[in-house]
């Protein structure tokens, strides 16, 4: 071993003595020195931001109503502290007859008034808040004399009191962050709604920066600085002497290669450990994944370096060696980009993301927001409403299948996934009617503000569930004069007053988000997930929805969730990975399941009788939850299911599970007998055929060391999908599969092959 160790050490000596060391160490040191003075300061939420007022109109009405009561209450107290001008503004907002323009104008007035009260020393009145449940922090603050509190504590106390009194209308508000440098604030306090700042740094910023720094820039520089090592060794005057020594040529080559890798390893470790210390020390983010990702980044370098070293050994020319490595990088990049464009623009948008059963019809929603209907006679998906291009940030509302005098219709709408209500969050209904083989689309009414979903209820009616209420739709066809009121600008204000829909929800209904609603088709019950709580509503005999029960399922109300209801069970899934089984009547928690630690649940659907729930994860894994089953069988992965990559699930009216898998294949699976009932493989378009038979196999075969960044991210985050903190409130948001081991295998085979062949040539070649 001695000669080979000497060769490895010689690489180090070469790096240390020559400029190559400084080419890497100096920039790394500068980066670390540049980052070291940065830090963050976190502030608790005090004053109200506009997005933290969930439903100002309802809040105004509630306070107004409490003010008219005889008993002391928070609303009465607030009302008493308002100025006469403020009261007038609030009354106009609370008035159901007020115009939308007035509401928008007065929304900010409400916020300003509340922020003025937050500054006040007099807001808290023990009698007024007697019936309100206060948490420990609030309790501690109200127990102190208001005049003894400093300004921040006073603001905090009043903010918490308002939150506690009106939890449905005032969101908790995240921590505010101030970025600092050398101890000075360089930004104003800002909030990141739905985002935990440290998690955001740890899970989003760090992998992105490290991937860019190490995976791209670092590897490129490393290739440049190490490219001369092998050709120099193989120079004629140097090589003859080396090979005259009692060593094995190929092992000497590998030792020299290893020396280059070891040198880069030290540089990578220096950067990673430096960043790890800075992030831990300055930002409080101690992510041990940094350590495990070092070998992956080293491997990325080693793959490129294997090409450079092999070409360098055979050509004995450093420039040719670098050119070969750059060419290899470019080829891999070009194939990855081609595949990426194909997937993003042609394949993925056409993938089915949701299935919905309505009146015995199977409807599917694609990732680009298109709508398909399953034709059970021709065993094909029929396009109903097309959308092209990249996967949309729009979410499909509905679809529902209705039968009218004019025939069958599909109603659907689309809204921004991150829309939070507001007067412009009124999705336009699209009415689709069959016209021969195709479907004709016409514009329908604008749905109520913040509509999340459309459902058909047992009496055949259609309801829209929104953040402001539940509405029965009376008329969906749009009339021309309903286009809106001209404003003189590029938009029109929606016209109100026409009874296209009527509220049938409870008066205190207000969803602060993130929210998801599901219906139990046989009974019309609604299950709602909203900001960490699950509630069930049933329709009364008067045709109005009323609350059955409500429970808190997570203290982290900023995370997204979804629900399904069937029989006596409600199942709630959370972004953090929990699957919670609840009793549909008492809302008591029965079980919490967590089976896929490396992925998060995406969808949950219920069989009509509530005997089975299907939970689909972002890694395309399916679990079945059987409330009647015992032990492990209660929540398990169906062993008989041959499909392993499932894109969407649904139950038909007979309780058979429908699965869409591998692009657009569909299968029916009986969860009771655990037998496949039937399955079909619809035909592909020529473009899809080219992708699945040529582009994708080529992409799989070609080594792409760049993809190993996913492996590094996986090791850092321990998740098989990217879990951007910006998406925490949206459980449906695509979480890209990191696919950590596939590139490792393909690239590993390539790596071994390149080095193996080079060793063979070196052994056989006359030098």
């Amino acid at each position: 071993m001695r000669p080979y160790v000497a060769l490895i050490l010689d690489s180090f000596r070469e790096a240390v003595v020559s400029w190559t060391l400084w080419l890497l160490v100096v920039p790394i040191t500068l980066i670390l020195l540049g980052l070291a003075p940065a830090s963050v300061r976190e502030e608790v939420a005090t004053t109200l931001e506009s997005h933290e007022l969930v439903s100002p109109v309802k809040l105004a009405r509630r306070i107004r109503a409490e003010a008219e009561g005889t008993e002391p209450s928070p609303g009465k107290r607030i009302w008493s502290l308002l100025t006469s001008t403020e009261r007038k503004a609030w009354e106009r907002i609370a008035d159901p007859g007020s115009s939308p323009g007035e509401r928008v104008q007065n929304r900010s007035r409400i916020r300003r008034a509340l922020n003025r009260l937050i500054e006040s020393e007099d807001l808290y009145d023990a009698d007024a808040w007697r019936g309100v449940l206060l948490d420990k922090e609030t309790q501690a603050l109200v127990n102190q004399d208001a005049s003894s509190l400093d300004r921040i504590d006073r603001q905090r106390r009043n903010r918490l009191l308002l939150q506690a009194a009106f939890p449905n209308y005032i969101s908790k508000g995240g921590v505010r962050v101030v970025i600092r440098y050398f101890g000075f604030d360089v930004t104003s306090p800002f909030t990141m709604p739905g985002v935990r700042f440290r998690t955001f740094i740890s899970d989003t910023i760090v992998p992105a920066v490290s991937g860019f720094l190490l995976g791209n820039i670092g590897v490129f520089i490393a290739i440049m600085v190490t490219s001369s090592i092998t050709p120099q060794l193989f120079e004629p005057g140097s090589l003859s002497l080396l090979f005259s020594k009692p060593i094995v040529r190929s092992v000497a080559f590998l030792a020299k290669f290893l020396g280059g890798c070891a040198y880069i390893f030290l540089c990578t470790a220096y950067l990673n450990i430096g960043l790890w210390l800075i992030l831990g020390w300055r930002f409080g983010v101690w992510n041990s994944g940094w350590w495990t990702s070092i070998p992956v980044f080293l491997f990325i370098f080693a793959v490129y370096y294997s090409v450079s070293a092999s070409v360098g050994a055979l050509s004995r020319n450093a420039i040719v060696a670098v050119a070969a490595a750059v060419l290899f990088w470019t080829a891999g990049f070009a194939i990855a980009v081609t595949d990426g464009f194909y997937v993003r623009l042609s394949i993925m948008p056409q993938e089915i993301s949701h299935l919905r059963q309505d009146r015995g019809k199977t409807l599917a929603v694609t990732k680009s927001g298109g709508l398909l209907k399953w034709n059970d006679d021709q065993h094909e998906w029929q396009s109903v409403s097309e959308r092209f291009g990249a996967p949309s940030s729009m979410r499909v509302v509905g679809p529902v299948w209705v039968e009218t005098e004019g025939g069958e219709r599909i109603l659907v709408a689309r809204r921004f996934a991150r829309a939070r209500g507001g007067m412009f969050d009124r999705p336009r209904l699209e009415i689709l009617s069959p016209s021969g083989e195709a479907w004709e689309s016409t514009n329908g009414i604008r749905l109520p503000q913040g509509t999340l979903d459309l459902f058909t209820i047992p009496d055949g009616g259609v309801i829209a569930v929104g953040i402001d209420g539940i509405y029965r739709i009376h008329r969906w066809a749009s009339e021309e004069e309903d286009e809106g009121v001209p404003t003189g600008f590029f938009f029109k204000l929606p016209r109100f007053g026409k009874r296209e829909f009527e509220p049938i929800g409870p008066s205190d209904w207000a969803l602060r988000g993130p929210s998801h609603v599901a219906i139990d088709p046989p009974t019309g019950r609604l299950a709602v997930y909203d900001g960490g709580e699950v509630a069930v509503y049933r329709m009364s005999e008067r045709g109005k929805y009323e609350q059955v029960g409500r429970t808190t399922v997570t203290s982290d109300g900023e995370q997204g969730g979804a629900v399904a209801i069937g029989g006596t069970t409600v199942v709630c899934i959370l972004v953090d990975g929990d699957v919670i089984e609840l009793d549909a009547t008492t809302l008591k928690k029965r079980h919490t399941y967590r089976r896929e630690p490396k992925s998060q649940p995406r969808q949950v659907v219920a069989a009509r009788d509530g005997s089975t729930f299907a939970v689909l994860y972002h890694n395309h894994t399916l679990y079945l939850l059987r409330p009647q089953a015992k032990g492990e069988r209660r929540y398990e992965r169906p062993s008989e299911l041959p499909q392993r990559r499932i894109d969407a699930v649904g139950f038909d009216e007979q309780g058979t599970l429908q699965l869409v898998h591998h692009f657009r294949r569909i299968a029916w699976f009986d969860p009771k007998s655990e037998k496949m009932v039937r399955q079909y493989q619809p035909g592909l378009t020529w473009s899809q055929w080219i992708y699945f038979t040529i582009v994708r196999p080529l992409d799989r075969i070609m080594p792409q060391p760049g993809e190993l960044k996913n492996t590094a991210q996986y090791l850092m985050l321990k998740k098989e999908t990217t879990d951007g903190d910006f998406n925490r409130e949206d459980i449906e948001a695509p979480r890209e599969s990191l696919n950590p081991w596939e590139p490792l295998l393909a690239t590993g085979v390539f790596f071994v092959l390149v080095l193996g062949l080079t060793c063979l040539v070196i052994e056989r070649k006359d030098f």
Partner: protein
Amino acid sequence: MTAVIELRQLEKTYGARFGRKVHALRGVSLEVREGEIFGLLGPNGAGKTTLVKILLGIVRRYRGSAMLLGYRAGDRRGRRRVGYLPENLTIPGHHNALSAMMLYGQLSGLSRRDVRARRMKLLEQVGLAERARDSVRKYSKGMRQRLGLAQVLLHDPELIFLDEPTDGLDPVGRAAVRDLLKQLSAEGRTVLLNSHLLQEVEMVCHRVAILHLGQLRRTGTVAELSEVTAGQLRLRIRVKGDPHRLRMVLDESELPPQWTVQEDEMVWQGVVSDQQSLDRLIDRLRQADLSILEIARARATLEDAFMRLVEPADPQAS
């Protein structure tokens, strides 16, 4: 004496598999005995370096056999006991003499401690001790050659291959190398010296082999090789008279018609095959009315033998 190198009908053909063949060695057979300094001579392209590289396993033989210290050529056990100074040695620029010695010593299987114990003494021996810590980038060609010689001796090899060891050295350095070779021989080491400098080989080598176009032309001691020119007379003739007549005489005698002029005298140097030819040449000079001022006879050298052996064109050359 034991043979440390044995070659039997050794052949090397480059490009044998790809059409355009170059025969670097054609059936070379020779032996180098223990303790001798063996000179390998030949013009450029004769196959000397190829022969050495085959022995060291850097190049593969095509046919025949090559044994080194009792092992097949290229065997690591054999190479462990060999020191090699290649022609145009390149020492990577990040080294100084000490680090280079450490690397090459360890490559030869020595421990760091052993290298540390030996390297300074050897550097002193080759005159590099004072510059041992300087980067080799600052070394002259001669200094690099000395460093190369020092690394050759570092692991105390039994057999030493020196490819143009005095290349780049000044006369003092060359003399030092010659002394070193003699010292090595006295220590019982075998040296295979590959050189263009015939005088050098003549001065230090016990035996010499002359290669030409891949063929072994002759092996033997310097004296034996000099016999190749036995009977021939190397002459220096000084005459005075008409140059046209001198030309006529040389043409008649089939001798090269070239001479130098010194004032009014003409000096011709060349080789005549025997005494009778010399007598005839003198008769013709006299008949041509040229005055013979001086006839001097020179001693036959290795160079004469070398020139004689490599001059004829090889009809089989590819």
